[in-house]
């Protein structure tokens, strides 16, 4: 649903902004190189400053956050923000919910996307292109439009305020299916034909041939899905009622009131709760992510 926006978030992250792709065309003379580094520093700062501001503000007192000119370094470490943030919403429970929703949501989405894209590429069935076109059409429909019908469906199923209601509607992602289909189309048909000659059925072909060959794309889809599910806000807000079913982004909202008082130090601290797990995932998986993304860029 929000996949394109997520993609830009991913590309704009400081880790991917390392410019590894430039290695082959490194300029020879000194001036362009300085310019290149200056440019990289600017881009790097643009990515890092907001994150630094978030981290530093999370240990500032409320008053210090608003001071003008801005104070770049907190004068004292006000860790009470974290304690306060942790107590102002049931974040422990929300962590569990977010993790459950993200993991099962992503697994489900990948399964559906792999199976359906395989079907679109390798199975002959009537009106395949028409059906694919309809799916692509569905991708153009903004998420807010399907919010109400989806809510009604989930309510009819009795899934409001349940994990099923949070997770299952997100399994169908045309974007993920589309990415995988485009990748599978590029696989040489000789390989799948050979496996069929050797007596492999569709599941065997999928598991032993197509999936290993599509690994970078599967990783890309997984990351996009992981981040968008972790950050998803409006659907979890609509489909859950009680605090014990809420996820982290909704928890953030609980710290910020429209009118009246907002303790920005606590908001920043709580935002750290939400951001840090994603940063850790990036830290450990950055090689895979960068590979997956560039793969996506050239093959998509």
């Amino acid at each position, binding site marked *: *649903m929000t996949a394109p926006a997520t993609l830009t978030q991913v590309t704009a992250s400081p880790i991917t902004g390392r410019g590894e792709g430039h290695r082959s065309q490194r300029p020879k003379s000194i001036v362009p190189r300085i310019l290149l580094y200056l440019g990289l520093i600017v881009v790097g700062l643009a990515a890092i400053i907001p994150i630094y501001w978030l981290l530093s503000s999370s240990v500032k*007192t*409320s*008053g*210090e956050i*608003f*001071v*003008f*000119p801005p104070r770049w370094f907190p004068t004292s470490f006000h860790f009470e923000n974290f304690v306060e943030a942790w107590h*102002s919403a049931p974040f422990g429970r929300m962590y569990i919910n977010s993790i459950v929703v993200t993991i099962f949501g992503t697994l489900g989405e990948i399964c*559906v996307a792999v199976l*359906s894209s395989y079907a679109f590429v390798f199975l002959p069935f009537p009106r395949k292109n028409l059906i694919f076109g*309809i*799916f692509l059409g*569905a991708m153009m429909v903004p*998420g807010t439009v*399907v*919010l*109400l*019908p*989806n*809510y*009604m*469906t989930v*309510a*009819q199923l009795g899934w*409001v*305020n349940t994990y099923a209601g949070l997770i*299952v*509607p*997100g*399994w*169908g*992602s*045309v974007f993920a*299916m589309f990415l995988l289909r485009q990748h599978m189309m590029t696989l040489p048909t000789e390989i799948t034909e050979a496996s069929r000659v050797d007596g492999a059925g569709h599941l065997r072909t999928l598991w032993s041939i197509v999936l290993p060959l599509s690994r970078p794309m599967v990783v890309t889809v997984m990351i996009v899905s992981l981040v968008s599910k972790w950050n998803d806000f*409006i659907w979890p*807000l*609509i489909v859950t*009622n*009680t*605090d*014990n079913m809420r996820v982290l982004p*909704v928890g953030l*909202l*609980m*710290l*910020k*009131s*429209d*009118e*009246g*008082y*907002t*303790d920005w130090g606590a908001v920043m601290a709580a935002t750290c709760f939400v951001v840090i797990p994603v940063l850790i995932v990036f830290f450990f998986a950055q090689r895979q992510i960068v590979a997956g993304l560039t793969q996506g860029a050239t093959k998509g």
Partner: protein
Amino acid sequence: MTAMINNRFGRRGMLGLLGAAAASVATGCARDFRQVGGSAVPAKYHGRLHLIAWHSFASTTGEALVDLVSKFNDSQSDIFVELQYQGGYEETQQKLSATLIARQIPDLVVLSEVTWRAMHLADALEPLEGYFDADLQPTDYIEQFITEGTVKGHIWWLPFARSTPLFYFNKTLFEKAGLPGRAPRTWDEFADWAPAIKKQRVGSGSNVMPLALDGGYSAWYFQGNMWQWNGRYSDGLDIKLDEPEGIAAATWMAEFIRKHKAAYLSAKGSIDFGNQAASAALMSTASLAQTTELAKAGKFELGTGFLPEHKAFGCPTGGSGWGILTHAPTERKQAAFEFLKYLGRPETSATWTMATGYLPIVKKAQKDPRLVALVTKDPNFSTSLHQLPKTRTQDLGRLVIPDASNFMDDAFETLYSSGIAPATAMRQLAKKMRRKADLLEDIYRAHYE
């Protein structure tokens, strides 16, 4: 997404589901409304009538409401109110609309001065006048607030978290600029003061701007300007904002921004005011606590005053209140009203006001010793109470026309931040409002005339 659900259920399952949905819509009342799901009732409240209340209060305001509700739960032995937070006012309304169609509803819900009108037009609210008894009478509420929730003699919406705009200014800065330490009485007076304020500098920063105008809710604040110029947004659904008075109000503000360069559209007026980039700002009364803290951090003295006048005084009310859903069973509606009666007690109202900065909702709350002490200690707090009798309900155009509160904000942001001719801006906005008002006409007549 829908297409993929299709895959999962199989075509027949999905068709069946659609059929079922269509059938349930077609037969209308055939299937009853059910209560939306809640948490397990804590052991000590077992056996009570379980009510679900949706609200939109986060942060300290949300905590204050949780306190009130647990006090209510402990104060009697028949009713257990479960609070469920549903995001801001608009998100709550959006979700309520969805649940009404899905026929799974809460029993009572917090609605803003705009969103309750939509729910009233959708026939989702219960008329409450029949529920009052000796403990609480409609006349106990502050008049502006209770009349706002009354249409054609029926009370649909009870006040709760109410606020009005207020003129906040930096007293220290005003005095440094050689001005009296009070809010300007008229806009023209403020324009006379502007050059002196603009000469001031704070720290090593640039010159101080006299007035910061917020983008969010700008149409709420401008409602005051309309009345001050003897104009109005609308008379019922009859849009009036492009009449000469309205255009004059818009022109004055546009010139204050463009010619005098004395005001500007701010991303967050309260923050600019707090770090003294602006000497004054129009903000909600509910922002007083935070602004007081910002002033303390910025080491300046905070002053508050009535909104400046022009030909007249004008200040709208805002904020939110409670509605009871008419589709809930009678005994739960009765119980829900018991909760609202609790909120209408003077001591509860005073507690809520002390904790949040929202205005008291019942007259007697103003005599509560804690509030009296607060007013004497912090004169800024009394400003909003003194201004209150002069405020009134906004013109219906902004309140009932779908999405008007949003696109009107956009229009005023454009007026404040671009070179658009004020007359053009108001005419464009009026045209858009008329077009939307036409679509609403039948349902409006059925409910308001």
